C-alpha cells in the first residue's frame, strides 16, 4: 500500500518533469517572428550619458590572461576598428541565400529602404563584403591566428523562429573566416535573454525590431541615442550622433531631415551602434476568391477592405463571414496598454486613430480627425479637429474629452505609455471637437505617431479612466468593426459597426481564429477551414503552400529587421 502511494508520488513528479521538459528552453515551434519586441524608448532620464568607448588600440587578445598586470584596469572589449572588422566580414547576400533561400532581403541600414530619407551606408562603406578590410583592421589591433580576438555571441534559440540558429552559425563562419576572430555561440531562453542584455551582460547579440510608427526616428534613436540605447542593451553614447538624431527628429523640413539622416547613416556605418542584417517578410495566405487583401509596409491589415468574389467558397459557408487564422495571442486590448502587432491590429479595426493610412499604402490620411492637424510655428503644438457627428459603435458621441482621458490613462503606465510620454507633454480640449497636443519638442513625425493605437478613442464605459482593461468583453469603438465576443484561445467575433463614419465594410462579420501551431494553421487554410492565414507562417509553410492550387501566397515586405548589437560598455575582464 505504501509502495503504491510512493509510486503515485513518483509519477506525479514525473508529470512535473515531463511538463517542464516538454515546454522547457526550446518550446513548440512558433515559427518566424512571433512578437517582435517592439521596444519603445523609455522616458526615464536616469541614465547618465556615458562616453563611447575610445578606440584604444589594445593589442592584447581578450581571453588571454596577461598576468603581467595584476588587477589591470578593465578594458572595453570593443573599439571602432574591431566593430568595423566584424561589419566588413559579414556577407548578407550569402547569409540570406543559405538560410532563407533568398527570401529575405539584406539590410544595409537600420531604416527600411521604402522609408523617406533611407540610404544604404553599410553598402557604401563595406560593399557586400570586404574580408580584406576586416583582416587589415584586426591585424592593426594586434590579433593573430594564434591569439585571435575572442568574444561571446548570444542569440535566443526560439523567439525569432528556428532559423536563428542557422543564421548565427553562418555569421560565425563568415566572421571567423578572417582567421583572427573566435566567436563563441551562446544561447538563452527569451525571458533570461532579455534580462541579460538589459543588464549589459551580453557583449554581442542578435535582436529583432519592428517599428512603432513609420519614421526613421523610430529605427535609429532607440539604439543610437544616449538616452534610449541602454534599454536596448546597446549602451551607446556619441554626442555627435545624439545631436544629429535630436535635430532630425525635431525638424519638419524635409531637406534638413534628408541631409541629417544621410550623415547619421554614414556615422552609423562608421561607429556602429548596431549592424543591420536583413529584413524578414511576412507571408499572408488566402483562399481563391478572397479579395481586398491590402497590407502595406505599415503592416496594417484593414479587414473592411476584404471581400469575396462571386465564385468564392467561404470557410464559414456564407459570404457575410470571413475567418482569419492567426498564431498570435492577445496580450491586451486596451489602446493605452497594447503593444504588440496583433493587439494593434484588432484595435485599429475596431477603432480609428486621429490619423490613419490609406489602405495598402504608407500615406497618412485623416481618421477620427476631419483633416490633417494644424501645427504651431515652433512645431511643438498639434491641433486636431474631430469629425462632426463622430460616435462610438453604440451611438455615444465622441468628444475631445475622450482624448484627454486617453492621455490621463497613459499615466496608468501601460506597456505603451513610454512611447507616448517620450514625445507628448500634455493634451487639452479647448472645445468639444478640438484636441491639442503639446509635444516635448518639435517632432515632425508626430502625424505618424498619431496614427498609432494609443491615439484611438475608447468608450468611457468599457475603459474607465482609473484602470486598464486587458480583456474587455466587447469593444464599441470608432472603427469599421465592433468586437462582440471573445473566447480566449479560441476565437474572436467582429461585426460591422452600424455607426462607423466611413464606408461600411464589404463583409459583415469577421471571425479571428487562434491557432497554437503554424503547421496546423497552414493545413487549415489548405483545407478551407479558414479563409486567410496571417501571422505567423514561416518560410517553410509559405513555400509549401505555393504548390497548393486553392490558395494564394503573398509576401508582405514588412519592415521586420534582424540586427546585431554591440554592448559598447562591455569590459573585457567582465568575462
Amino acid at each position: 500500500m505504501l509502495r503504491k502511494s510512493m509510486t503515485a508520488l513518483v509519477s506525479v513528479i514525473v508529470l512535473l518533469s515531463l511538463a517542464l521538459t516538454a515546454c522547457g528552453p526550446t518550446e513548440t515551434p512558433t515559427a518566424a517572428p512571433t512578437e517582435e519586441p517592439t521596444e519603445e524608448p523609455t522616458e526615464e532620464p536616469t541614465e547618465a550619458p556615458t562616453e563611447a568607448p575610445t578606440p584604444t588600440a589594445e593589442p592584447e587578445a581578450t581571453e588571454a590572461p596577461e598576468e603581467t598586470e595584476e588587477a589591470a584596469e578593465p578594458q572595453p572589449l570593443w573599439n571602432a576598428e574591431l566593430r568595423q572588422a566584424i561589419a566588413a566580414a559579414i556577407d548578407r547576400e550569402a547569409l540570406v541565400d543559405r538560410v532563407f533561400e533568398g527570401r529575405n532581403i539584406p539590410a544595409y541600414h537600420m531604416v527600411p529602404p521604402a522609408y523617406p530619407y533611407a540610404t544604404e551606408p553599410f553598402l557604401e562603406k563595406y560593399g557586400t563584403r570586404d574580408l580584406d578590410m576586416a583582416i587589415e583592421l584586426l591585424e592593426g589591433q594586434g590579433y593573430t591566428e594564434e591569439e585571435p580576438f575572442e568574444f561571446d555571441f548570444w542569440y535566443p534559440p526560439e523567439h525569432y523562429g528556428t532559423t536563428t540558429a542557422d543564421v548565427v552559425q553562418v555569421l560565425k563562419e563568415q566572421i571567423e573566416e578572417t582567421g583572427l576572430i573566435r566567436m563563441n555561440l551562446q544561447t538563452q531562453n527569451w525571458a533570461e535573454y532579455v534580462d541579460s542584455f538589459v543588464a549589459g551582460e551580453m557583449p554581442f547579440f542578435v535582436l529583432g525590431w519592428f517599428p512603432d510608427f513609420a519614421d526613421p526616428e523610430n529605427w535609429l534613436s532607440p539604439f543610437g541615442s544616449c538616452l534610449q540605447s541602454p534599454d536596448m542593451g546597446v549602451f551607446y553614447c556619441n554626442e555627435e550622433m545624439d545631436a544629429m538624431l535630436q535635430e532630425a527628429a525635431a525638424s519638419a523640413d524635409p531637406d534638413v531631415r534628408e541631409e541629417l539622416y544621410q550623415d547619421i547613416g554614414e556615422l552609423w556605418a562608421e561607429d556602429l551602434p548596431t549592424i543591420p542584417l536583413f529584413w524578414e517578410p511576412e507571408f499572408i495566405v488566402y483562399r481563391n476568391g478572397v479579395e481586398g487583401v491590402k497590407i502595406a509596409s505599415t503592416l496594417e491589415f484593414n479587414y473592411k477592405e476584404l471581400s469575396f468574389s462571386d465564385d468564392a467558397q467561404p470557410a464559414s459557408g456564407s459570404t457575410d463571414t470571413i475567418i482569419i487564422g492567426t498564431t498570435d495571442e492577445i496580450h491586451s486590448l486596451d489602446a493605452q496598454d497594447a503593444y504588440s502587432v496583433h493587439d494593434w491590429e484588432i484595435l485599429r479595426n475596431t477603432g480609428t486613430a486621429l490619423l490613419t493610412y490609406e489602405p495598402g499604402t504608407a500615406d497618412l490620411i485623416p481618421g477620427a480627425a476631419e483633416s490633417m492637424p494644424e501645427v504651431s510655428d515652433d512645431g511643438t503644438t498639434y491641433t486636431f479637429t474631430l469629425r462632426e457627428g463622430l460616435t462610438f459603435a453604440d451611438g455615444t458621441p465622441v468628444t475631445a474629452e475622450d482624448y484627454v482621458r486617453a492621455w490621463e490613462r497613459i499615466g496608468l503606465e501601460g506597456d505603451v505609455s513610454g512611447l507616448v510620454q517620450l514625445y507628448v507633454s500634455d493634451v487639452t480640449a479647448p472645445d468639444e471637437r478640438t484636441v491639442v497636443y503639446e509635444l516635448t519638442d518639435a517632432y515632425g513625425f508626430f502625424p505618424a505617431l498619431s496614427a498609432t493605437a494609443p491615439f484611438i478613442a475608447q468608450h468611457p464605459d468599457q475603459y474607465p479612466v482609473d484602470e486598464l482593461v486587458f480583456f474587455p468583453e466587447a469593444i464599441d469603438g470608432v472603427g469599421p468593426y465592433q468586437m462582440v465576443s471573445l473566447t480566449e484561445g479560441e476565437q474572436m467575433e467582429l461585426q460591422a459597426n452600424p455607426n462607423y463614419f466611413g464606408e461600411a465594410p464589404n463583409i459583415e462579420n469577421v471571425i479571428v481564429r487562434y491557432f497554437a501551431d503554424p503547421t496546423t494553421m497552414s493545413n487549415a487554410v489548405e483545407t478551407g477551414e479558414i479563409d486567410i492565414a496571417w501571422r505567423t507562417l514561416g518560410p517553410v509553410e509559405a513555400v509549401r503552400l505555393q504548390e497548393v492550387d486553392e490558395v494564394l501566397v503573398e509576401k508582405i515586405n514588412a519592415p521586420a529587421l534582424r540586427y546585431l548589437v554591440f554592448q559598447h560598455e562591455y569590459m573585457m575582464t567582465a568575462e
Partner: protein
Amino acid sequence: MSSSFRNFIITRLLMTIPMILILVTMVFFVMRILPGDPIRSQLGPKVSEEQAAQLRERMGLNRPLHIQYFDFLWRMVTLDFGNALTQGERPIREELAEKLPATIELAVPAITFTALAGIFGGAFAAKNRKKPVDYGLRVISVMVYAFPIFFLGLLFQIIFAVRIPLFPLAGRMDSMLMTTFEPITNFYFIDSILTGNWAALKSMLLHLVLPSFTLGLILTGPFLRLTRVNMLEMLQSDFITAGRARGLPEDRLVYKHALRNTFIPIITLLGLQFALLLAGAVLTETTFSWPGLGRYLVQRIELRDYNAVQSVIAVFALFVGGISVLVDILYAFIDPRIRY
C-alpha cells in the same frame, strides 16, 4: 462498509495531502530558481528598473519568499489562486473554469480509448499467442509509445483532415457554430445537450476525435502489453483449465473469466497513466490548438508566470492524487486482501 475498508479510505485520503504539498512546494521553488522573471519576459527591455520594481511590488514579488509561499498555500486551500502575473492578469480561477473542462473533455475519451484498446487488444494478443497478430500488436504497441505525440498528431491531421477530409483540424467546435453557442459549464458536450444544440454537439464530437485518438493511442502500448502478460498467466491457471475441461467456449473463458481477473494491475496502471495523460495533453493541445490547461501551462511557463504555473500544477496534482486515491480504493474494494 467494513471498518477495515473505511480505515483504508481515510488513511489513503490523508496520504494524498503530503503528496500534493510536496509537489506544489517543489513547483513554487523551481519557478523561482529558474532564471528570468515575469516582468522582463512580458515587457522586454523597455521597462526601466524603477518601473520594474513598482511592478514587482504590485505583484507581491518583492515580499520575502516564505511570505509568498504561505500566502500561496493559503490561497490554494481557499481556492483563490489570485491573478495571473502577466499578459492580461486575469483571475486564475476564471482561466481554470474555462480551460480545465476543455482538458478533461479531451482526457476522458482518450483514457477510455486507451483502456478499451489496450485491454481488449492485450486479451486478443494473449489469446492468439505467438501468431502473427500477436507479434503485430506487440510491435504496434511499442511504436505508438515511442512516437512523439506532436508527430502522431500532425500525421493524423494530414491523413484524416487534409488528405481525406473526414475530421476537422483543430479547435473544439466549428467557428460559425461557436458564434451562437452558449457555454454554461465549459464542458461543450454537456452544454450542447443542456441547450439542445445538436449541431454543436455533433461538431464538438467530430472535433474531439483526432486529438483524443492521438492522446489515447500513445498510452495504449503499456496497457496492451500489461494485459497481455497478465492474461497469459491467467490463461495457465487452474480455473481456466477447469473451464476448458467443462467445455466452455474459448472466447467466453478469455473475455469473461480470465480478463476480469487481470483488472487489478490494470486499474493500478490506469492511475499511473493518468499522470502521463496530463503531460501528453500539453503537447496534444498545442498540436490541435485545443484551448485547454496544458496549452495554458506552456504559455505561462514561457512567461515565467509563477502564480499561473503553480496553480495549474496544483490542479494537475489534485487530479492525479484524486485518481490515484480512487484507483486504490477501487482496488481495495475489488480485492479485500488489499487493505491496511
